[in-house]
């Protein structure tokens, strides 16, 4: 029953590269963002239980180091796309928590004007090309973002070498779209980095029950000539230090990569998951390796004892308090914000609305998106 997904394997150790060390400032920023996601998700669950949030809602708690460590390795203009467990990526990419929470509350001030919901977080100014609800459907999209970066460089002379990041969960490994995308990524020499957030479960089905040869997932990428690397997704500092060189390499050579991040989610697949498929002990074991507690401890441990010695107990409490207030503000904002007017029902359907597109609806342009 017990999973061993976050044990650093021989391969992970072997692939350990000497990337740039995470600076003290970066480490504090990482801690802050991870705590923001944790606090945000805890409020999200409360709001869901109070029926303020509807639909499906997938909580990111436990996986914070994955989004934070990978996105820290990017440039601001690198496009990012993810699946439906997307609140963490949105916040790590810089979306304001109020825009994220208001979206889940179905409000006009939400990132998608209340038309997307929990699974569809889009943020154009922060180059987040959406959370996507269909498992694996974002993998060809991620390829396309990278293809466009390459096309703009080669054909249109953008002069800018960019990479695209595409997240997927281990459940998406069962989708054919992903393997079509891997094949095309190599054929078209496309700088897409597939980040597998391997939390050990495809909904309620354990990795070994849904993926053949589950100990060697990187082989799947390497079969298509895509470099595959395993990393510990619970230690944000080591993750950054290994991931950053992968990004730099893909950017420089304009090639794809696949990274298998071993992580764990503390909550169920979605808010409606009774979690009969795993034991409470297993969850507790992972909580002992918690990525935020680990980072906070590393930063608080004095230099002489092998830590960074840059954070006091008081600093950490103050940071937590500040984040708590920020997320509380986001909740209040989302609560008080206006729902979209009914006229918004038929806007944003066509960029060029024309007569007779529908027997029933007259389409138009809506109000401007709050993020634009």
């Amino acid at each position, binding site marked *: 029953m017990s999973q061993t997904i976050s044990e650093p394997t021989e391969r992970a150790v072997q692939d350990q590269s000497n990337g740039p060390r995470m600076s003290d400032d970066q480490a504090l920023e990482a801690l802050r963002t991870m705590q*923001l996601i944790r606090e945000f998700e805890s409020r999200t669950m409360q709001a869901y239980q109070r029926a303020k949030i509807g639909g499906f809602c997938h909580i990111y708690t436990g996986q914070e180091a994955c989004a934070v460590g990978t996105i820290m390795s990017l440039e601001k203009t690198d*496009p990012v796309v993810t699946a439906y467990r997307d609140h963490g990526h949105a916040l790590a990419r810089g979306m*304001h*928590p109020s825009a994220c929470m208001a979206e889940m509350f179905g409000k*006009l*001030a939400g*990132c*998608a*004007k209340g*038309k*997307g919901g929990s699974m*569809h977080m*889009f*943020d*154009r100014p922060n180059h987040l090309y*959406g959370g*996507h609800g269909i498992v694996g*459907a974002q*993998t*060809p*999209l991620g*390829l*396309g*973002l*990278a*293809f*466009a970066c390459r*096309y*703009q460089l080669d*054909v*249109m002379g953008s002069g800018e070498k960019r990479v695209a990041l595409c997240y997927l969960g281990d459940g998406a490994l069962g989708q*054919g*779209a992903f393997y*079509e*995308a891997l*094949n*095309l990524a190599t*054929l*078209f020499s496309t700088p897409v980095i597939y980040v597998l957030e391997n939390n050990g479960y495809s909904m309620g089905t354990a990795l070994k029950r849904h993926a053949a040869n589950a100990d060697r997932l990187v082989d799947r990428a390497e079969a298509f000539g895509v470099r595959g690397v395993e990393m510990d997704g619970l230690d944000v500092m080591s993750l950054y230090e290994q991931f950053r060189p992968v990004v730099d390499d893909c950017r420089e050579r304009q090639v794809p990569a696949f990274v298998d991040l071993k992580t764990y989610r503390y909550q169920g697949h979605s808010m409606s998951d009774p979690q009969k498929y795993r034991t409470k002990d297993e969850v507790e074991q992972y909580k002992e390796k918690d990525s935020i507690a680990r980072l906070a401890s590393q930063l608080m441990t004095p230099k002489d004892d092998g830590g960074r010695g840059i954070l006091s107990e008081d600093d950490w409490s103050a940071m937590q308090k500040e984040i708590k207030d920020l997320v509380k503000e986001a909740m209040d*904002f989302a609560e008080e914000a206006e729902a979209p007017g009914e006229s918004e029902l038929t*806007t*944003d*359907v*066509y*960029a*060029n609305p*024309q*007569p*007779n*597109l*529908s*027997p029933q*609806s007259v389409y138009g*342009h*809506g*109000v*401007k*998106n*709050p993020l*634009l």
Partner: protein
Amino acid sequence: MTTAYTPELTEIKDAIHPALGKVEIPDFVSESELPSRDGDRVIQYREALREAMTEEMRRDERVFLIGEEVAEYNGAYKVSQGMLDEFGPKRIIDSPISENGFAGMCIGAAMMGLRPIVEFMSWSFSLVAADQILNNAPKMLYMSGGQWGCPIVFRGNDGAGGQLGSTHSWCVEGMFANVPGLKMVIPSNPYDAKGLLKTAIRDPDPVFFLESERMLGDKAHVPEEEYFIPFGRARVCREGDDITLISWGRPVHFCMEAAEKLAGDGIECDVLDMRSVRPLDIDSVIESVKKTNRIVVVDQSWPFGSVASEAIAQICERCFDWLDHEPVRVNTIDVPTPYAKNLEAAYLPNAERILEAVRAVVSE
């Protein structure tokens, strides 16, 4: 550090879309102002398609063509013949047989501001890409609250190519036109094919462009000068007072054939080529029905939930009292597409079946 969130929620100004910038819709002229359809510059339907793509690719480097066999093979149906030589492999791109992969890739690329033209060798093969072309392309603008659209053209052969059997003979219009957010264009002749494809490439929304293997060799005059045909404007192919016949794509020719024969019997048909089904120029249809009081709709897809059904529903909603006879539709027969030549011929709409339908309607 997260900055203060002060949402700006103002009305979007016409023509400047926040996500897509200035939408470059060409200036359309009325049908009578378009260059003449008569002339001696006779080219094939496939060449008209090629001219449209080539002209737009010369003008806009964001436009590229991708599909199976479009480059080195010069197109499975020779639509893209010679384009690799002119534009090179970065813009005329051979894809492996991975419709879901390359269609999805192009949707991502369109979000990034490129203008992909995706060729499906057959629309039958687009079914394996259904998730991408139906679930992503037409919904992206809405789902992102207006932040990202999807300016893309999906094009390829639709309908029975000739004894290809059930799986290769799909008419996808009935099924796909159901989805809001996409536009669907089905040209019946080389002149329209060129003018509509140029418009499709300029349009900022996803356009499903349905061609026909059986028409790629059709020849007609296509003028040298540039022209654009707008979506949602039907063309009156033939005028008559007795009955309205509407269709789109290949069956327009069967309607014309039937109308010719009916004229011999003294029955004059108003024949409308709808050219696009989403938007559907229902106003022109209503205008015609108010003159003829009778309507037959010809559609080369299955009847259940078809574009023909939709057209008839709209006619009933808009001019029920003007009808002297219940509307009639001529669709393909409601069975999987057969292989045997005689069965396939019986399955498809043809002039004979249209004649029968019209005679039944006008005789009552």
